[in-house]
């Protein structure tokens, strides 16, 4: 497990670097899919089978399809136009370096629990047990999450659905149909 942990840890960090520094949004999305898959591997390594399956189905499956769909619908994959100022770049890097240093110090020196003392036989992520806790101890939270998702669906439809204004003049279904009609009239 230790070897797999290190290999996939390095792969995860590399693909996360790809997400942050890839010049085109679509490449960022593909790197993010890779990162999510590697995280699913980590979850499986830790014995959290249910979460690993959810990670692949919900994140890498549903959410990333939505993101890629929006990128391609809006034609956002415009190529490398990095116009952020040097000041933003350096101050962001310095802030993140300090933040990472703080977190690493906390996780390597100041842990308030003894590492390695817990249950680590990998039996914690049994889907049956997770499901049982989900609908007994966390029943109300589960129902609230269902309500939240419902509200999010309604909000997304209300925000995105505007029949009066197309996404971009001259693009979309009307434009395609118009150009097809033009082509047909030219042929006729």
């Amino acid at each position, binding site marked *: *497990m230790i070897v797999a*942990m290190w290999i996939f*840890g390095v792969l*995860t*960090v590399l693909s*996360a670097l790809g*997400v*942050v520094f890839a010049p085109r949004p679509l490449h*960022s*999305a593909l790197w*993010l899919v890779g*990162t*999510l898959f590697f*995280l699913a591997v*980590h*979850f499986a390594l*830790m014995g*959290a089978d*249910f979460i690993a399956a*959810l*990670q692949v189905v*919900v994140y890498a499956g549903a959410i990333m399809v939505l*993101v890629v769909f*929006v990128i391609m619908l*809006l034609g*956002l994959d415009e190529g490398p136009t990095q*116009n952020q100022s040097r000041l933003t*770049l350096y*101050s962001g*890097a310095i*802030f*993140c370096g300090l*933040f*990472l240093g703080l*977190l*690493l110090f906390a*996780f*390597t020196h100041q*842990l308030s*629990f003894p*590492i390695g003392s*817990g*249950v*680590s036989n990998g039996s*914690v*992520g049994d889907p049956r047990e*997770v499901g049982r*806790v*989900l609908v007994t101890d*966390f029943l109300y939270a589960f129902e609230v*999450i269902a309500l*939240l998702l419902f509200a*999010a669906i309604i*909000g*997304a439809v209300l*925000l*995105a659905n*505007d029949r009066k204004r197309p*996404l*971009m003049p001259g693009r979309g279904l009307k434009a395609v149909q118009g150009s097809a009609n033009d082509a047909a009239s030219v042929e006729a």
Partner: protein
Amino acid sequence: MEVTQFYLVLGAVLFTLGTLGVLIRRNTIVIFMCIELMLNSVNLTMVALSRQFGEVSGQVFVFFVMAVAAAEAAVGLAIIMTAFRNYHSVRTTDVHDLAG
């Protein structure tokens, strides 16, 4: 290095990378994906601590984070589409009417 500590450190590195992306990138979609990266790093930390303490509730929290992330993806991408409809761009340098 202990397994739990390894995953805490990995989660910290991924969270910091997500923060860096949110701070330095200008494309709203990429910023959105970096936020997903930060959410996932927290999920990793929670699964590691769930394993450490033999407690299932950490994984239930991960389930809730995923549901909230799905809701955030739906609404966030709808907001991005609305911004694109109004500004014909999704870069934060173009959409800045609330910047004061």
